[in-house]
């Protein structure tokens, strides 16, 4: 199919979706309090912006998101490298990993509250745990999969310490694999943001809970779309960064 045809179909599909959505509450098929028609969303969005609530919620969520993501990705990469490089480290941590890995990130909520209180740091903790394992396993696999032949090149030219091996070969060679993990983490972290804020830390998630308890479903939808937009923004920016970092690939 040619590009204009595809774009036309995509637009038509979206229009149809919005039309059905608009019609359902208006024709009384569903209670408008449970499902607001899309036409009321821009108004609700405007109100959230002019009252300043939107910026506050988004800024606070973004700060949780970025700090949590940075912490989880940083630890994941560091420990993933250690585990991929050193057999002894992998063996020493094997059972710990086996016990901790299957615990869902949200199962840490009780401890997050006990340790940090209903504070931004609790949200950061939940988000960091949510992305840690993804990045850890991606990094470990990528480091272990580095071509032995390239490591031999480093040895042949006198780079024999493990630091040199890491900086000259392992890190650049495993960057593609690590970035795949980080991109998955980017999406996973948004889920964790909502989950972490639903228990009361200020941000988008908390605002959604407030709105839903007042049956202000239009505001809930505003924030759902806000998150979709932010995720799209971050993902596109990341894909661009990834393309630039991996411009050496064929």
């Amino acid at each position, binding site marked *: 199919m040619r590009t204009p045809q595809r774009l036309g179909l995509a637009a038509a599909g979206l229009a149809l979706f919005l039309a059905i959505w608009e019609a359902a509450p208006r024709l009384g098929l569903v209670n408008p309090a449970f499902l607001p028609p899309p036409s009321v969303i821009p108004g609700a969005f405007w109100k959230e912006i002019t009252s300043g609530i939107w910026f506050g919620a988004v800024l606070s969520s973004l700060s949780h998101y970025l700090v949590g993501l940075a912490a989880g990705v940083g630890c994941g990469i560091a420990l993933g490298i250690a585990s991929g490089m050193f057999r002894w480290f992998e063996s020493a941590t094997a059972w710990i990993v086996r016990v901790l890995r299957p615990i869902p990130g949200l199962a840490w909520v009780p401890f997050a509250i006990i340790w940090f209180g209903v504070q931004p740091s609790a949200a950061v903790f939940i988000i960091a745990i949510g992305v840690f394992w993804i990045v850890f396993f991606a990094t470990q696999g990528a480091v272990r999969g580095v071509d032995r032949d390239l490591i031999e*090149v480093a040895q042949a030219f006198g780079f024999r310490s493990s630091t040199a091996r890491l900086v000259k070969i392992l890190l650049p060679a495993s960057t593609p694999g690590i970035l795949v993990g980080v991109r998955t983490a980017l999406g996973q972290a948004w889920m964790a943001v909502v989950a972490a804020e639903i228990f009361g830390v200020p941000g988008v998630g908390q605002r959604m809970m407030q709105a839903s308890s007042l049956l202000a479903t239009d505001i809930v939808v505003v924030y759902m779309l806000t998150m979709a937009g932010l995720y799209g923004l971050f993902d596109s920016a990341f894909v661009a960064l990834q393309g630039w970092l991996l411009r*050496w690939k064929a």
Partner: protein
Amino acid sequence: MESVIDIEGLSLAYERDGQRTEVLADLDLTIQPGELVAIVGESGVGKSTLLRVLMGLAKPSGGRVRVATGDSRRPPVALVFQDARLLPWRRVISNVAFGLEWRGIPRMKRLERAKAMLRLVGLGNLAHRWPHQLSGGQRQRVSLARALAVDPEVLLMDEPFSALDSFTREALQDELQRIRAETGKTVLFVTHDIDEAVYLADRVIVLAGTPAGISALVEVPVAHPRSRHDPTLAATVRQLRTELSARSAEL
């Protein structure tokens, strides 16, 4: 003149699952400065193991190996691998500069030297390409430039042209001859191609047996630059073939 490589009674064995395998036994070899010595032998005979010993990546189990070190800033050896093994995330020029990065040479100096080496192998205009944008022959030239950049006492080459098509291979053989004339580098060249060995080398060493030792040593009495059609070269190739078939008949 002081030799650059001096190997005396070298033997190497490794143990796996309590089984001792001898790869090299009682090998003697002396290489003079500026010489090109070719080592031929069947695959798996231990040619690459010998190179690994010279690089210090494998430990001999007996004998003495001495590689000259001119001064502390120059490594004794540098290797050109069979497959070019460029680092795909580095541009051509930074691949060539790779071996200079631990010697405390400032970045500008490194790049200058890399550029000069690229010009030497005829790729001065491709400095900023990525390795995946090069042909097989160009990649092998870059690999050669990378090894030359560190200015080693001895250039080790491990079947460097065997993966190339025959036109490219001949072009690179001539290129190596020209570079050797320009730089006076000592070269130890491993190959399984007898014609190549005779065309390039001052001396050809045949490695054979298990464990492997030097089974024949043939001088190639033709001055450089050489013609591929030189009858003496053809005669030397015949002589070597005879030696080799006599060897394999013995075994």
